[in-house]
């Protein structure tokens, strides 16, 4: 079976497809959050060093991973937009930024909640924390640059370039705990050495990560749909005809 995926690069084809996909991502995300929270609070054991405070990682780690992952995805869409001059790619990049910024904020906030009882400080200027804070400013920069330029094409391209250049910070965040002697602990889950956590802890964390990932897809698709309508990128079809149908009914 062959599917012509390139057809979905047109907003009018993508729009209804996204609309059909959103409920599925949302339902599975909510279900997995339920399972993840149950495992995180009732199945995973108490940490022998950190006590119950470690349970913050069930939101902290997924949020931090999403903050970095979404930035990379945003930069990729920005790059595709610049390379192919594709409208939808710029809209994708625009739609990802707020969710990425939110997860960055949450990673910093929940990190502070973990740092206070564990290190005795809400915040330290350590390489991991500082580079993550810079990531928040980068998301803010991407969004502000777009809103500060009136011409839509220039706004798209400028914020795309800004997003692309800033992607160098992501490996810096990721490897900061190895490159510098940071207060932030090293990775508990590593691609090379495996996991240092109890199986149920790791399971709960991974389930929450998948849930956050699906949540992100759902809200980002919903936001792209809003942007498509706001930018008036829809020709006369589906949604527009649905809207005019309502108009006829109103009269």
């Amino acid at each position, binding site marked *: 079976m062959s599917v012509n995926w390139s057809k979905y690069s047109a907003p009018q084809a993508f729009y209804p497809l996204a609309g059909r996909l959103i409920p599925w991502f949302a339902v599975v995300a909510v279900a997995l959050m339920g399972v993840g929270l149950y495992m995180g609070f009732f*199945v995973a054991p108490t940490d022998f060093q950190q006590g119950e405070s470690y349970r913050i990682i069930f939101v902290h780690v997924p949020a931090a991973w999403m903050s970095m992952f979404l930035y990379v995805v945003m930069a990729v869409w920005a790059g595709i937009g610049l390379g192919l001059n594709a409208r939808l790619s710029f809209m994708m990049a625009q739609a990802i930024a707020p969710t990425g910024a*939110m997860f960055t904020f949450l990673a910093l906030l929940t990190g502070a909640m973990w740092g206070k009882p564990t290190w005795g400080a809400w915040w330290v200027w350590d390489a991991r924390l500082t580079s993550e804070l810079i990531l928040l400013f980068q998301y803010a920069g991407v969004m502000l640059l777009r809103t500060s330029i009136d011409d839509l094409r220039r706004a798209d391209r400028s914020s795309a370039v800004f997003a692309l250049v800033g992607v160098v910070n992501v490996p810096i965040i990721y490897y900061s705990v190895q490159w510098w002697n940071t207060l932030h602990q090293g990775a508990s889950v590593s691609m090379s050495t495996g996991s240092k956590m109890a199986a149920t802890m790791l399971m709960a964390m991974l389930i929450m990560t998948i849930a956050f990932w699906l949540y992100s897809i759902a809200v980002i698709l919903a936001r792209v749909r809003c942007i498509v*309508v706001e930018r008036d990128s829809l020709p006369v079809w589906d949604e527009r005809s649905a809207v005019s149908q309502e108009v006829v009914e109103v009269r």
Partner: protein
Amino acid sequence: MQWGSASEFFAMGGYGLYVWTSFIATALCMGWEVLALWRRRAAARAEQRAGLLGDTDETTA
């Protein structure tokens, strides 16, 4: 299961403030994002509808 009672669960071994602030803040952010998108969608569609009404007014006039 490590919780003897509900109050033990909410106390989180003395870390309740930190643990629950983290989880509630996350839930609030996500809830707010979904609500904001809902409103944004309604506003976008309302504007589009208004635009279409305007269009048809012009053609019928």
